């Protein structure tokens, strides 16, 4: 197998930080619960990318196994989260998270 000479790890750290920040920005910026879910996926993705980059840097396959488990947890989280979202929509007829403010007072 041919060895791919790579990009330095600092570039990947920078890319992951930017992607994670965009995800956090989206969680704060949007009010639609579905888009907030997507932004959480974006943040998980940034962490996965960083783990894979460090796995290459340190020649360690344990990090890639952890990425595998993060993907499994993300899939389970999305299936349950979207079921909860459907329940919320059935009861309140909206996906606006500001409609769910009963715990605020």
């Amino acid at each position, binding site marked *: *197998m041919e*060895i*791919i*000479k*790579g*990009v330095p*790890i*600092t*570039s*990947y750290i*920078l*890319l992951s*930080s930017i*992607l994670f*920040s*965009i*995800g*956090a*920005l*989206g969680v*704060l*910026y*949007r009010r*639609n619960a*579905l*888009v907030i879910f*997507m*932004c959480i*996926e*974006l943040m998980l*993705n940034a962490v996965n*990318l960083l783990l*894979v*980059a460090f*796995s*290459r*840097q340190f*020649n360690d*396959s*344990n990090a*890639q*196994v952890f*990425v*595998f*488990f993060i*993907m*499994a*947890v*993300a*899939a*389970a989280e999305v*299936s349950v989260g*979207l*079921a*909860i*979202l*459907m*329940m919320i929509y059935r009861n309140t007829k909206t*996906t*606006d998270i500001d409609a769910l403010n009963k715990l605020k007072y």
Partner: protein
Amino acid sequence: MITQYLFYFLTFIAIFCALLVVFSKNPIYSALYLIITFFATAGQYFLLNAQFLAAVHIIVYAGAIMVLFIYVIMMLNLNKEVEPHKSNITKITATICGCVLGLVFVAALRDTDIAEVSEYSNPGIGLIEKLGNVLFGAYMVPFEISAILFLSAMVGAVFLSKKTIH
């Protein structure tokens, strides 16, 4: 060098589409841009010699999770008209908070020393053969627990989406 160009190209696509996920008005456009971001990330995995993870990433994210998202958007019938509006002060605050978070990350990580390891001595760690040995060796118990997690998630999803009878 070709990998450098590919890296910058994929980085540009990932960041551009991630911004469009956040700032698109219509949720279906957000979902479609998120799929492009996932494909760009899978390309990054290929550049990092993690071929198995790239394949799993496309299968799980673009194949399963995004289909679920798009189905939910279809069933809830979401579009631009029903999109809730936020006040300008919240938007400005959110933008400032996101930018400051990114700034803190970059500033904290800028001066760190990355330990120099003998790189690329073993390029095959991302192949399914090596990963399978690790996964079914040291990580056998977590692997089976994740199976139980999936089962409980399935039961939970079915239970939650059932029509409740009062």
